[in-house]
Structure formats: structure tokens, C-alpha cells
């Protein structure tokens, strides 16, 4: 018995040893990412597709937890142990890495011509001269609803704010469903799915966002306070104990069919498709009057750059050119419905919910989250404060005016536009 085991062990190590040798000649690229959810898609679809075309290059996708990614990546880069390819957060986080020399300049990378200037803007220097990440995808905000619930209660998909609140009232009066699945425990839900979702309709998308950066508008202006006033009105429609409801709680409430409307980002589509047992639909943030121009948050969310210290820069560039190609865009957008390709070549998508989201790009004007570019560079950090204040407004701790004033005061303390 023991001898058999020993032989088996020896045999096992022998085989493993040879496997190790066989692979030693290949170049292995490591990808740093915060998208642990995508692990299977990378392993089963994207990486095999690339490796089939590029023998000799092995790719390993090594994600870490979203909330720890930035800190962990920073530490790894400083220690020189970071992977060859780095998944880029949009704007300042990546710009900072580029300025520190951690990310290589990719302006001349073959394939970069496939992206529009807007798509590249999230990963460029302020003057737009150098690009340092290949844009991969954007996410669109809106509301996902339970189609079965809407049919049962005879609710039409709301297009205006009055219709939206009428629908919420009707769901609440009926009592079968929690009208809206959202909690304030994790703070960011309130800011990202709430404020940044409905806000662009008030501050007119890019127009307001640019004006805020230029200093022509203030967060205390009516257009910026109004979304908070609307958020404050959401409170009675949220579930019991929403103050301690976390983001996974909200997701589960909706996919279990206990809530009717879910303020969403399109990244939820993949998960919801596999978990929800009912039909789903989506609608963009409602406008004030029928026929008003609608604005959506089409946020450039994810890109990929090259670790400047990578020892396999050539192989990594080959990989990045492939990421910039329509091939990658098609696999990625279909494997991850809800992450919309930024590639200029239109990508055909199969998922109906994803098609619904992306169709808003044609009828509404796109913008990105107001706090991401430039405005979150100082202390206090506008994005983090927006999380806290959005939750405060919904919890009723702060009035919309008080919240807006706190944010503007914080911003004024370090941001002097026009200098």
C-alpha cells in the first residue's frame, strides 16, 4: 500500500516536472484586474481565443477584490511584482499611474485607431496627447424592472417622472412587491445607482458636467440639487430596513422577485439573466415631460494598459492590439452583456436586455459620471463624499440643500477652476 502510494507520488511529481519544462519556453502574461466575476469568461472564452491565434503566449487572469484592487495594485507596482497587463480604472487613478511611470504610453499601439476620442478620453493625459490604456467597455445606468410584476399590476413602462412615481405608488399600494430594491448601507449604491443615474437628466449631461469642471456651475445650483430632492422622495419606496441593506441584498431582493424596480448599472445584466426566474425589461431614467431630451450615464469604466516594468512588453503589446480589435469586442460584449464595447465598429449583441440598454445611445445623449474627471483629485474626495451624502439624503440625515452645500464647500476648499 505504502509503496504504491510512494510510486504514485513519485510518478505524479515526475509528470508535473515535465509539464513545467514544456511550458518554460512560453511567455506568460499576467493580467491584474478587479473583475473577479469575469474569471470564467476570461479563462473559457477570451484567453483561449487569443492563445489559439498567438501560440507561445500564455495569459493568466489574476483578479483581486474590487475594493482592494487599487491599494493592492499600488503596493504590487511599488514592489515590482505586478502583472504585465493592468486593468485600468477610468481617469485619475490610471492617470496617476501613468505619471508615476507605471503605465506605458500606448498612443502608437496598432488598434488604437478603432476608438473615438470620447472613448479614449478616460485614459489620456489632460491635453489628450498620450493614451495609456486600451478602452474595453462602458456601463450604462438605468432601471431594470420585473416585467411579470408590471404586467400583473397593469403598469406601463414610465417615461416621465410623474409616471415613474405613479408606478411606484401603485406597486406600494398593491403590497406584493417592494417597489424599489436599493439600500444605503454600502453608500455607493445611493450615489452610483441613484444620483449618477437620474442626475444627467437634470444637469443636461455633458453640458452640466463640463460647466462644473470649468467652474461655471456649482453643486448648489438648482440643477445639481434637484436630483437629491428626487432621491429623498425614494425613501418610502425602499424595503424595510434599507439602511442596513447591502448591495448583494438589493441584487438578491430583485432577482428573487421580491422587488419590482431595480436602479441599475448595465453590468448587472449577466448576473440577473442567470438568477432571475422572471422576464426583465429596462427603461432609462425618466425625464420631466414627455418629449424632453433624455441623458444617460454611459460611463467609460474599464480599460487595459501595459505595466511599464513588464519584462514581456512585446507579447503584452500583441495582446493589447488584440484587445483593441473587433474580434475581442464581439466576444467580450456577448460574453459580458452589459459591458458595452467602445469600439467604433458596431458590435452585434444577442442579449435583449443588453440591446435595450445600448439602444438608448441612439435616442439619448451620453455622458459620464460627474465626479470622475478631475473633480475627485483633492481632499476631501468628491466621489467619496458623494457616496456619503447621497446615502445621507435618502436616510433623511441631510436635506438635499445641506448635502449639496457640504459637497460644494468640500470642492471649493481645493478646486480652483481656471487656474
Amino acid at each position, binding site marked *: 500500500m505504502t509503496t504504491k502510494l510512494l510510486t504514485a507520488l513519485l510518478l505524479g511529481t515526475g509528470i508535473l516536472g515535465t509539464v513545467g519544462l514544456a511550458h518554460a519556453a512560453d511567455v506568460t502574461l499576467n493580467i491584474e484586474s478587479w473583475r473577479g466575476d469575469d474569471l470564467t469568461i476570461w479563462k473559457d472564452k477570451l484567453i483561449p481565443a487569443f492563445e489559439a491565434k498567438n501560440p507561445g503566449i500564455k495569459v493568466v487572469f489574476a483578479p483581486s477584490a474590487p*475594493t482592494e484592487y487599487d491599494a493592492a495594485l499600488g503596493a504590487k507596482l511599488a514592489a515590482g511584482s505586478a502583472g504585465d497587463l493592468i486593468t485600468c480604472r477610468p481617469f485619475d487613478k490610471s492617470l496617476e499611474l501613468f505619471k508615476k511611470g507605471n503605465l506605458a504610453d500606448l498612443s502608437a499601439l496598432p488598434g488604437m485607431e478603432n476608438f473615438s476620442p470620447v472613448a479614449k478620453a478616460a485614459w489620456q493625459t489632460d491635453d489628450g496627447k498620450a493614451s495609456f490604456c486600451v478602452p474595453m467597455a462602458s456601463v450604462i445606468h438605468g432601471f431594470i424592472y420585473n416585467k411579470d410584476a408590471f404586467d400583473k399590476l397593469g403598469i406601463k413602462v414610465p417615461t416621465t417622472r410623474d409616471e415613474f412615481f405613479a408606478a411606484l405608488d401603485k406597486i406600494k399600494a398593491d403590497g406584493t412587491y417592494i417597489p424599489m430594491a436599493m439600500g444605503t448601507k454600502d453608500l455607493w449604491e445611493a450615489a452610483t445607482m441613484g444620483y449618477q443615474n437620474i442626475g444627467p437628466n437634470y444637469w443636461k449631461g455633458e453640458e452640466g458636467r463640463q460647466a462644473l469642471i470649468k467652474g461655471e456651475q456649482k453643486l448648489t445650483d438648482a440643477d445639481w440639487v434637484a436630483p437629491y430632492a428626487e432621491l429623498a422622495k425614494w425613501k418610502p419606496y425602499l*424595503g424595510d430596513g434599507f439602511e442596513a441593506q447591502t448591495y448583494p441584498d438589493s441584487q438578491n431582493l430583485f432577482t428573487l422577485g421580491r422587488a419590482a424596480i431595480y436602479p441599475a448599472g448595465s453590468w448587472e445584466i449577466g448576473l440577473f439573466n442567470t438568477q432571475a426566474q422572471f422576464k426583465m425589461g429596462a427603461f432609462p431614467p425618466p425625464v420631466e415631460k414627455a418629449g424632453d431630451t433624455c441623458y444617460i450615464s454611459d460611463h467609460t469604466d474599464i480599460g487595459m494598459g501595459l505595466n511599464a516594468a513588464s519584462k514581456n512588453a512585446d507579447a503584452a503589446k500583441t495582446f493589447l492590439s488584440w484587445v483593441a480589435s473587433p474580434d475581442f469586442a464581439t466576444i467580450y460584449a456577448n460574453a459580458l452583456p452589459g459591458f458595452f464595447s467602445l469600439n467604433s465598429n458596431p458590435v452585434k449583441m444577442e442579449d435583449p436586455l443588453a440591446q435595450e440598454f445600448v439602444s438608448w445611445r441612439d435616442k439619448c445623449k451620453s455622458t459620464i459620471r460627474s465626479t470622475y474627471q478631475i473633480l475627485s483629485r483633492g481632499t476631501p474626495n468628491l466621489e467619496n463624499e458623494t457616496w456619503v451624502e447621497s446615502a445621507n439624503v435618502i*436616510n433623511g440625515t441631510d436635506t438635499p440643500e445641506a448635502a449639496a452645500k457640504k459637497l460644494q464647500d468640500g470642492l471649493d476648499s481645493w478646486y480652483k477652476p481656471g487656474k
Partner: protein
Amino acid sequence: MAAETRPKRPFRWHIGVFLAPALLVYTAIMILPLAGTLQLSLFRNIEQHQVFVGFDNFRTLFGDPNWSVNFWNALRNNVWFFIIHMLVQNPIGVMLAALLSSPRLRFAAFYRTAIFVPTILSFVIVGFAWKLILSPLWGVAPHLMDLVGLKSLFTPWLGKEQYALTALSLISVWQFIGIPMMLIYAALLSIPEEVIEAAECDGITGMSQFWKIKLPLILPSIGIISILTFVGNFNAFDLIYTAQGALAGPNYSTDILGTFLYRAFFGFQLQVGDPNMGAAIATMMFLIILGGVCVYLFLVQTRLRRYQF
């Protein structure tokens, strides 16, 4: 005269040799990083270069309302966190130890183990388990309270500004109650039988025996426990981070020095980390803990009477 004639003692090398490993290890992993932190707090990153700025970081920390408001809030919360531990954890710990050391208690070993188990659990498990227990949606807490007709008293504690910190402090008490219990239990067991017997001869038994004989004898242990609690609480971070996240919501009501330091040092979400300000906060934490320990050593411990048997 005798001293002059005595042969000179050889230098005792072995003392140095025996001390060296501990000294080297302690220097490398404790003193050097501490000195590094203190040094880092005196510099600032200007145009990608570390520039010496004296006490400017501390001036920012206390002078700039964007920092000082958060700092004082974190310190206040930390003090409350500590007060709850002192008022709840340590008295209950002493009480449990007294009960456990009672010779008439059955299953003492089982209780001792059961109460100590949470202490060896990971913070992540504790934070996550309690988040689930207290969850208004799927938690057992609202259900259990409903069974005894107290559902109306249930609120989403971890999500309410006025309760969140106290709730988390109590969770931490639940987790660490085993430590004071074990230390006091050991101290109680080490009280010699003669002392107890003498007390019994004098007619001191039961509760008065605890108050008049045992408690004075375990006071030094209680002192040690207090200082351990103090150091532990002012270094705390993990539980808040796992249960509430780095922003220590709602509205920073559970922000303690550890989470404040984490956000400053490593950054969070769009906030880019600032190691220099982080080091300044870490230095303040060090000074606060140092101050607390000094107060204990010089004012309290010297006055505690020690009993030698």
C-alpha cells in the same frame, strides 16, 4: 583593597550573543518600521519627490477642517468604542471567570471553550456573520425577536447613525470576551488555598469573599487587561472594515482611527492614497497609545499593591 587584587572578569560575550537574535528581529520588524513611519510623516510628496516639510502634515491634520473634523470624529468614536469595551467586556469577563472558577459549576471546560471560540475566529467571519444575523432582510435577529413579540424593537442597527458604532462595539465585545475571561480565570486559580481557607476561618464566604479577598488579588490582572483592551481598541480596524467598509458609514459614524488611517494611507475608490498624511495619522495613533500606556504604567501600576506568596 580586595577589589584591586581580584582578577579582572572576562567580558561576558554570551550575554550579547543570547540577546542578539531577539534584539535583531525586534529591531527589524518593529523599531525600523516605526521609525520609518515617523520619518514618513515629516515628508510630503511634491512633484513626485519626497520633500522634508517638518510638521506641516500635522499642521494640516489639525488645522485644515477637511482633515481635523474627520480626525476628531474618529478619535471620539474610538473613545466610545473603548468605553463600551471597558464597561461591558471586562466586567462580564471577570464575572464569567468567577463563575467558571466556582468548584460547583458543571461542564466548566465546555463553557470555557465555547466562550473562547469567537476569539480565534477571523474578523472577516465575525463581521460577515453578524452582518447576516442583524440583516433586516434575511437575518435571524428580526425573526427571533418576532418570536418573543419584540419585533417592534428591531431596527437595522448597522445602518443607523445613532446605533451602528455601539452595535459594532458589542460585536467586538462578543468576539473578545474570552481574553479577559481566560486571564482572570488564570489569576483566580493562582490564588493560594491558604488565603481562601484563612478567609473562611474568619467567616468570609460567598460574595463577600469575592469582593474582599479575590478581587483585590486579581486587580493587577484587571489592570493588564485594561491596557490590552486600550491598545487593541485604538489599533482596531478589521471589524469596522469588514462590516461597514472603508468609508465607515453611515455618515462616518463608525469611523475609528484605524479606518481613517486606511483611507488616508491607501486611498479608497477614487481617492488616491497619501502615505505621508497616513503616516502622520499613524504617528498620532502611536502617541495616543503611548500616552495611554504611560499613564497606566506610572500612575496606576505603581499604586497597585502586589501580593507575594
